[in-house]
């Protein structure tokens, strides 16, 4: 099933939204999930990379760090409250 990078970005965004607050997803988790969903021929790692870049550059998602790097929805950082 052939898809575009933007479609993959949308699908990734939905996943991040669905898992927000439940499980933190890494870039490689999203890539694995997309390859599983669309198949390696329709959606390769390069396309997933472009999709993640689009998600971040459009501010729909942000990188976070909690012992490793994750991709999450933008949210107010709890510890930043006093700043």
């Amino acid at each position, binding site marked *: 099933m052939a898809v575009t990078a933007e479609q993959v970005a949308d699908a990734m965004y939905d996943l991040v939204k669905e898992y927000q607050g439940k499980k933190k997803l*890494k*870039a*490689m988790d999203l*890539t694995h999930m997309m390859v599983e969903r669309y198949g390696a021929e329709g959606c390769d*790692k390069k396309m997933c*990379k472009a999709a*993640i*870049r689009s998600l*971040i*550059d459009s*501010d729909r998602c*942000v*990188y*976070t*760090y*909690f*012992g*490793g*790097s994750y991709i*999450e929805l*933008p*949210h107010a*950082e*709890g*510890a*930043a*409250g*006093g*700043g």
Partner: protein
Amino acid sequence: MSETNGKGSATPMLDELEKGEWPSFVTQIKEMAAEKEQCQQLLELLERSYREKIGHWKHGGIVGVHGYGGGVIGRYNDLPEEFPAIAHFHTLRVNMPSGWFYTSDVLRKICDIWDEHGSGLTNMHGSTGDIILLGTTTDELEPTFKALTENDFDLGGSGSDVRTPSACVGPARCEWACYDTLDLCNDLTQTFQDELHRPAFPYKFKFKCSGCPNDCVASIARSDMSIIGTWRDDIRIDQDAVREYAENGVNIERDICGNCPTKCMEWDGHDLEIDNGNCVKCMHCINAMPKALRPGVDTGATILLGAKAPIVQGAQLSSVIVPFMKLEPPYDEIKDLAERIWDFWSENGKNRERVGEIMQRVGMGNFLEAIGVDPIPEMIAYPRENPYVFYEEYYEEEDEEAEQEEEEGAAVP
């Protein structure tokens, strides 16, 4: 008797760290405390932590500059009402120039930027090699980044990405450099910008480039991929210079030949002979007689993989993955190798698992097969012992059949 800092707050426990003959970070922060409220509160919070034996810093979370997932390390204190000036005290990692060469003008620019946007405190340099700018607020991140990029600086790596590659001074100042460490470091940095700024790996990945086996950047202990200069021809010998060392009091038999780990050298009082086939490139003789001995001319690098500090598992040193690789622009061979390793690691690595750990978990044989590298005897865990590669290709079917027949024969009474 305790001293007081610039604003009169007593910090008796920190003051202890100013005593003695060594430079003190407390003294340096106190100097800045006269100008910056952040530094004053930083001292007070640290004093409190020492008193209470409790750390008051939270590390991580959401901070960064637009589009980047690395380069900013979020720091928040858990007492923001009491220490509002350092409620946010984020660290920026700035990609240093290869070999840490600066002009004084550039250093002043960096300090001016940091005085304007942050605490003014720096760490030159962090253990990865970056310029570390300590302490700013979330609001100041983008303006700082803008000012840095206007002066041709970029952020370095942090999190699960390629960390800022680093290199020894190499051919710029050292006659033993077996490849151009500065050029390779810069090339890797430019080539892997995406991997450096957008974390996509199970965990961090570090490149360190050392020009010769002296390994001045300690790449064998501190980098996932250690690129250590070496040579594959003979050590160059100037016999007249060797004799000069002897005439000037160097005991060549005892201090040079006697300290050679493989005893591959002989000194007859007139000439020094080296059995280069048995030389393990330890550099001892070259270091001891730099005017007489030099690395060969057929130079390149040994590529090692897997060093790490203890996190999930214990510390380990890198081990050889490619005994000799020519390193010349455009460095396609080493880049291709790195990408094959990343593909396998990203596909199969567990969260926070370093490359050295996945090598151990899946076994060296499987790892080599996955990255398309043939096993060879140089891939050993320790010099001259313990080969851990299983050579399947030497184990023919006929041997198996013969073994089986032998066993069956032995079983018959």
